[in-house]
């Protein structure tokens, strides 16, 4: 079996695993839609008070909200993707089995997480987004080109999101307990991805900083590409650079962990 087919099989497994829980998915759609409605009202009030905040008009701010609800589970912005299982396997020592496999550890988990993301996008993310487009004014392109560029940024965003969470998961090799790491992932993910407010609406120096951190690759970049607020090539370069840096860091930490750390035994 070619290695490409192996990782494809892992990705399909990730997709099917999440597709199993239909009621949970429906519940997620409902919750994302309710939160979307609440956020839209607060953003509309904010943009009413200050039109063109962060370079967005009201329709663009609304689009940003619904894209955020669409990508919230897709990119596991507050955690809860493949890294959760990885942390558990490191804690219990099951990771030893993974290390024995004739497959690359990082690619294996990336493939599984991409499968998960694809399901969360199609099964959970699209419906709230469509709901938003039907009931609120949104700024969506009618041309195919921005949508194609958007799909590319989504793929890159998925890789960056995984790379961040993979690094966090590896820390459990040393920390043993995942609770604090998960909390840190949640706080940084929600804040720096721009789930509370679009990053381009952050004030002053804080705005300058958050817009160059890797989390900006997750929601802000795809949103700006979709709405034509940034050059797609610039967005790709930014996302790809962070993906390479974070994945490389992940490999470094992984090799340090597997060489120096004694696996937990039961």
């Amino acid at each position, binding site marked *: 079996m070619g290695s490409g087919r192996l990782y494809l099989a892992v990705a399909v497994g990730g997709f099917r695993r999440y597709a199993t829980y239909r009621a*949970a998915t429906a519940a997620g759609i409902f919750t994302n839609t*309710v939160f979307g409605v609440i956020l839209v*009202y607060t953003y509309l009030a904010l943009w009413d008070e200050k039109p063109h905040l962060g370079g967005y008009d009201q329709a663009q701010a609304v689009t940003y909200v619904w894209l955020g609800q669409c990508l919230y589970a897709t990119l596991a912005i507050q955690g809860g993707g493949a890294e959760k299982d990885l942390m558990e396997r490191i804690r219990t020592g099951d990771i030893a089995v993974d290390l024995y496999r004739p497959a690359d550890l990082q690619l294996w988990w990336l493939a599984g997480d991409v499968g998960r993301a694809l399901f969360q996008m199609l099964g959970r993310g699209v419906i709230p987004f469509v709901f938003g487009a039907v009931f609120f004014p949104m700024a969506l392109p009618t041309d195919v080109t921005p949508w194609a560029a958007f799909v590319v940024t989504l793929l890159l965003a998925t890789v960056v999101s995984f790379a961040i969470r993979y690094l966090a998961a590896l820390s459990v090799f040393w920390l043993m307990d995942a609770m604090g790491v998960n909390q840190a992932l949640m706080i940084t993910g929600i804040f720096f991805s721009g789930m509370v407010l679009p990053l381009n609406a952050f004030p002053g120096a804080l705005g300058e900083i958050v817009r160059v951190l890797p989390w900006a690759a997750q929601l802000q970049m795809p949103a700006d590409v979709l709405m034509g607020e940034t050059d797609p090539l610039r967005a790709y370069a930014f996302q790809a650079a962070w993906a390479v840096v974070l994945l490389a860091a992940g490999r470094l930490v992984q090799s340090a962990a597997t060489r120096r750390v004694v696996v937990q035994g039961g």
Partner: protein
Amino acid sequence: MAEPFGGSRAGEALRAYRLIAGMWIRSSMTYRASFVVTVFGNLLVTGLDFVAILLMFSQVDSLGGWSLPEVAFLYGLSATAFGLADLTFGSMDVLGRRMRDGSFDILLVRPAPVLAQVAADHFALRRLGRITQGVLVLGWGLLTVDVDWTTAKVLLLPVMLVSGGVIFCALFVAGAAFQFLAQDAAEVQNAFTYGGTTLLQYPPTVFGKDFVRGVTFMLPLAFVNWVPAAYVLERPYPLDLPRWTSFASPLVAVACCALAGLAWRAGLRSYRSTGS
């Protein structure tokens, strides 16, 4: 199932709750450093909502016509009331998991009220972080907001917090009852509990009229803070409600509890074990 009624029943429930919660506290205190870190983390996570509001007010002077201290007052009331409910009833979303893996049956055969056992299950003292954060914002709001304080307004504050907390508790119980119907769909209740506290952190003027109607008459969240706060801040009442409604929160809370209790009983009666 037949359950005896009477005064001793409530006492029994409280005693069971205290014992189970105490056990979970002792277990979390085994790792003291971890406990302190998680309380702090909880405080930070819940504080993100307020950071969002601060970020908004870094760009504007008012939101929906309300100033930052007024919004902080609303936020503090909503977050503290929700924090109280989250601490006492917030672990009920594990109920669906217990039904799936069959461990819910164990709770049914124990000689203690099931609701008390479920509510105290996985009691997490770290949720004090949320209450602390809510109280801090409420305190800051009270210090900075421009209000002519009267005895009635001061007395209304604790009434709001307690009634608000009870309304949210009823929501948690209703959410738990819903899990008897749809075990995997525990997340639906988040839309009402977490969604509820989030929307109450913003002024009612921000939302559409139909939306406000919904959270006043159908799901009476408006009585947690919007309606009584209108009296304290001398603001126009949402939906032009009459003035006396500001003092109706305790009644609304009692009604919510009665409905949630009925839902819980109906859910419990319909429970069929997984059988495996």
